């Protein structure tokens, strides 16, 4: 875990001022936490820029499920690494359903995955399994 006490002093100051919650999110920001994207699915207009922001302690990456783009690559390894505090942004110019995943904590369709729905396109969320 890296820098768990970041904003430590500021937390105290904010608490002292009665303004404890500084966690408001921009609508187009996807939080990368351990080991999940939050929110998992977002719907944005065509031309939007989506920002992935890492608040996780683990290493992550953001890679298109079809391999067409990724947040960070590596000269030496198969994938690059996003660490806590890093940001990555991508602009979606065409309508469609864009699925992505973290290669360290999922496959291209299971585990730590997410979806960006761009524009007015049909999309049905995966049906959750029901265990009887």
């Amino acid at each position, binding site marked *: *875990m*890296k*820098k*768990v*006490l*970041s*904003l*430590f*002093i*500021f*937390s105290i*100051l904010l*608490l002292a001022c009665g303004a*404890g*919650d*500084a*966690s408001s999110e921009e609508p187009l920001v996807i939080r990368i*936490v*351990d*080991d*999940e994207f*939050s929110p998992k699915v977002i719907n944005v207009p065509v031309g939007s820029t989506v920002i992935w922001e890492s*608040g*996780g*302690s*683990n*290493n992550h990456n953001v890679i298109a499920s079809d391999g067409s783009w990724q947040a960070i690559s590596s000269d030496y390894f198969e994938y690059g690494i996003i660490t*806590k505090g890093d940001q990555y942004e991508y602009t979606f110019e065409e309508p469609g359903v864009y699925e992505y995943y973290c*290669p*360290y*904590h*999922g*496959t291209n369709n*299971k*585990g*730590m995955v997410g979806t960006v729905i761009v524009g007015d396109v049909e999309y049905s969320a995966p049906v959750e*399994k029901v*265990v009887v």
Partner: protein
Amino acid sequence: MLEVGDNKQFNTIQEAVDSALEGDLVLINPGVYNESVTITTDYLTIRGTNRNSVIVDGEFMRENGIQIYDTDGVSVENLSVRNFSLNGVYWNGSKGFKGSYLTVYNNGDYGVYAFDSTDGVFDNIYASGHPDSGIYIGQCYPCNSLIYDNVVEGNALGYSGTNAGGHLYLYRNIWRDNMSGIVPNTLDSELNPPGRETTIISNLVVDNNNYDAPTNRFGLVARGMGIVVPGRVGDIIEKNIVINHDKYGIVASPMLDAKLYFSQHVQVKENLVLDSGYTDLALAGPWGPGNCYEDNIYQTSTPPLLEQLHNCSSLENDNLFSRFPLQGDVSGLMMLAGFFADAQNEELDKNRYKEYPWPKEQLNMTFDNIKTPSPAINLFYVPSIDTMELPYDLVDEDLNNLFEAKKEIIMSGVPISSPSIWQLLFQLYGYLMPFVLYAAWTALALYDLNTNNQVSGGRRYMWLALVFLVPFFGVLAYHLVGPSSISKTMKYAAIGGGLLSYLIILILTAVISGLV
């Protein structure tokens, strides 16, 4: 059944898994399998024929050994997993998971790791050489999971469980020779905080002072501690033997991440906690309501009279004091800041997990029929914790031999013989300086009351009482809205300037130490 090995149906585990249907058994014969296995078929059983000679090896170039994604009921049994850059065996999004008789070692993150997964069991696992925890369960509520009969040693943390709880039981495990023992926690780096309602009972927690274990920064913060419950709600810590830790035996503390979490309703009962370097039992402030300590065998506590002032019986009797929303002072918070700052300023050897000594051979699982699958279905039950006792039977040597912690004299949370610069700055300056300022303001007020002709008779004594009896606010009221004749410039310098200087130095300390 699908069989893997030399001259068998499949040469690799992944090939067998890819061919398996729901409910199948994949039986693996001895060999070193240099592969990473991904499982997305429900209710598989992955079983080695020999725990010590069926080895999945990542050669430090693959991330996860066996990874199970959004897949229910997968059991992994009787094999070894080593040398992966992240996790040994990893479940993500599973209802039903089982890791039994696994030897996981020298992986770069966790040994066995269940995230967002419920209804599972980890039993008879041996985990060593991980820079995070040997066993981890994260982000589940209720978890409905059991962790028992495991031996976990030589890791940064024995157990870690972030934002996990609810019918989560850790019992009859041995956590020894890690950097710290059992550390459930609350963090904003996972969803659904806080962590809560974990029962830690009848464990042997001993000698967790291994400063040569692989570690990340969090491990450094908690080093030398037996059981740490930071920012937790409703955990029960009962009937554990916790011996020989350089810092604390059992400590409940606040947790600072993006937000601040307070421990509340944590019960610490009937443990044997001895030979701790700082104190055996500790409650670090500020803390929330309902924490209680009762019937423990121990020698030292922080704060003093912990069991007397915070005993569980008084909670049951609606003790008003125990229901105050925030209690304690910020010394615990400053102590944490000092530990975190120390951790930020230490060099980490990120390759240490690769070189950690390998474990000796471990006991194999026994089977009535090794070809019968055992998927992870309906595994959870509520253990009969009322019948559990202090686990003397897990101690394999004379208990007296374990008493060897380096004893430390503590004043205001600072170890006197060997404080680090950050501990001094946070715990002495950060904690005590406001009291120094308070004393200075009070002295100024007393001087003024003695010489101020505008205040006389009864009013003088009224103000004197206010200054003495209402900490901080009384003296501030005297100077800011009372009859103080001290010049405005002097007052602003003493009060505003003092506070501002304090905050600036504290912020600078946080920045320089790397906390911010």
